[in-house]
């Protein structure tokens, strides 16, 4: 009883100390303050019940003697989320590196150099050095796009490899549980075996969101996403990795998870390492470089930049007086498939400075009109994508990645604590009745809620302090 008394008293102390309104029933508080509480057991009563075993109502005391399946489930769920966030951290790291906005070789830097080169060229359109500067800057922009595209493709390849290895690990763990089930079926169940099963299930949980159910003869049934059988008795239904070619209209196909019958069960995977890999490989990376049904923001940016620059140059003239000589396109790319634009962006082969058309034929005719428009492209509405400048659009792509990384970091740290918490409670609550367990959980939950409200207040104060020091 010691732990129960301790939980009740400390939780009640927390309520009093913080004087916070918390959503705990009056009965709980009243009972918690009852003199002599330490010598009493609370009575839990279920209401309006059709119980799991078919009986109606009843207040039987159930004591858990060895493992606590509810606690084990809580640990597995916490492990599953931690596996997801840790995998997100790992898989997002190279994506964030590729989308770096600070490096001198990065796309934003190259874009700035290009617009600076256009600006310089606009001051003396016939200056050969300035013309060469534009071509070199365009080459740097192309290489920056190619480099980022290559890095992201490499990250996508790693994710695909990890998907395969994770599915292999899941199948290995399932096979282990199958072996344990065989021992149980043979009547060899013992606490050591149960501990091994729990350890394997925790590992499996970190790989995917699984659910466990008691099977025939004390065996363990393991389901993926609550629906797809992984292990039933001594049968393993192995998973495999497939590809969704049907959706690959703009780029490489996305990955799918298939059950033992070849059915697509991808949507059932929501957590664990596998959930994170599917999220990064099927959503985040394709949102940048294309894949599945997505063109990819990087390709959209490369195409928009190249088309805008080319259209302006082709609308201008290389000669200041009639007959006007139309300019040439500076950039080239391969738009088939659209997901390959950034990777194939380049400067037109053998492009000469004299092909740069600075003259706006008008009317009115302006000798450096096109060059000026190109120099102002990043601030001119004509050069915007969805209301954003080229640089701004890239920044928004990078910000999406940064937010995903930040969220993964925060969640991974917090989830580490949640796992510790679940494991600690798993130990504390083993060997007590469900009623006692419920009371303890409600009381500890109340203590958490009280502390959580203080965190909310601190967050608000911190935000106001940030506003003051801006």
């Amino acid at each position, binding site marked *: *009883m010691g732990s129960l008394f301790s939980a009740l008293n*400390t*939780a009640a102390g*927390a309520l009093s*100390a*913080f004087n916070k309104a918390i959503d705990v*029933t009056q*009965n*709980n508080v009243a*009972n918690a303050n009852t003199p002599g509480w330490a*010598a*009493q*057991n609370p*009575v*839990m009563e*279920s*209401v*309006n*019940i*059709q*119980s*799991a*075993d078919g009986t109606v109502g009843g207040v039987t005391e*159930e004591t858990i003697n060895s493992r606590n399946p*509810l606690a084990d489930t*809580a640990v597995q769920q*916490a492990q599953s989320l931690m596996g997801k966030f840790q995998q997100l951290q790992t898989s997002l790291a190279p994506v964030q590196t590729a989308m770096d906005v600070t490096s001198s070789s990065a796309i934003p830097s190259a874009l700035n150099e290009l617009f600076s080169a256009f600006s310089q060229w606009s001051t003396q359109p016939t200056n050969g050095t300035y013309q060469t500067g534009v071509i070199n800057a365009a080459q740097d922009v192309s290489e920056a796009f190619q480099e980022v595209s290559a890095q992201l493709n490499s990250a996508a390849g790693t994710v695909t490899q990890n998907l395969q290895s994770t599915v292999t690990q899941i199948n290995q763990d399932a096979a282990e549980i199958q072996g344990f089930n065989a021992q149980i079926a043979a009547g060899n169940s013992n606490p050591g075996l149960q501990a091994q099963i729990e350890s394997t299930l925790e590992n499996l949980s970190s790989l995917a969101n699984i659910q466990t159910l008691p099977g025939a003869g004390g065996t363990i049934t393991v389901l993926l996403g609550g629906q797809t059988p992984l292990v039933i008795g001594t049968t393993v239904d192995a998973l495999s990795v497939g590809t969704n070619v049907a959706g690959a209209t703009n780029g490489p196909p996305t990955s799918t998870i298939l059950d033992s019958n070849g059915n697509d069960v991808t949507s059932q995977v929501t957590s664990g390492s596998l959930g994170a890999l599917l999220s990064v490989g099927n959503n985040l990376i394709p949102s940048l470089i294309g894949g599945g049904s997505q063109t990819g923001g990087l390709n959209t940016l490369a195409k928009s930049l190249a088309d805008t620059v080319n259209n302006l140059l082709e609308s201008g003239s290389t000669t200041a007086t009639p007959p006007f000589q139309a300019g040439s396109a500076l950039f080239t790319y391969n738009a088939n498939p659209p997901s390959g634009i950034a990777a194939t962006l380049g400067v037109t082969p053998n492009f000469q400075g004299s092909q740069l058309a600075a003259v706006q034929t008008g009317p009115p005719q302006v000798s450096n009109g096109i060059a000026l428009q190109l120099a102002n492209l990043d601030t001119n509405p004509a050069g915007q994508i969805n209301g954003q400048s080229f640089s701004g659009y890239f920044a928004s792509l990078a910000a999406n990645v940064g937010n995903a990384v930040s969220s993964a970091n925060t*969640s991974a*740290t*917090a989830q580490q*604590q*949640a796992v*510790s*918490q679940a494991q*600690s*409670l798993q130990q504390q609550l083993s060997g007590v009745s*469900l009623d006692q*367990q*419920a009371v303890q*959980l*409600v009381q*500890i*939950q109340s*203590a*958490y*809620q*009280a*502390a*959580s409200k*203080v*965190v909310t207040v*601190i*967050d608000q*104060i*911190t935000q*106001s*302090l*940030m506003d*003051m*020091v801006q």
Partner: protein
Amino acid sequence: MAIPVEIPNQYGDVAECMHAARANLDRVRRLLMRPSAESVDAAAAILREVEVQLGCISVLWKADQSKRDPKLKPVLEEIRKDVGVLAECFSQAERLFEGWIRAIQSKRGGYDKQGQAAALILVNQVNLEG
């Protein structure tokens, strides 16, 4: 008429106060790595202190803008990050408790007609021991 606010001596220096708040948040994180009813209570007490520390900084900054040192912004950002982790931690804890309690409810009392885990109520009734 504004009510004058008294700042305790130990919270008079903004920089010290902010660093102390940061250190306290770190203590909270470490406490929650070994969760128990006791450690949550201890963590909550420390959080209350952090609330006072940051509240004092807010009062000082409102009263005297010259004390708003931009060099402290990175510390504030770190505090914000730590608070974010704690908020996420408490959010996860809430989900954990809710799921666990629901599991106990359904195991103990089955399901109601809406398919929800049957509610358990703590009645004003006790069993005496000994």
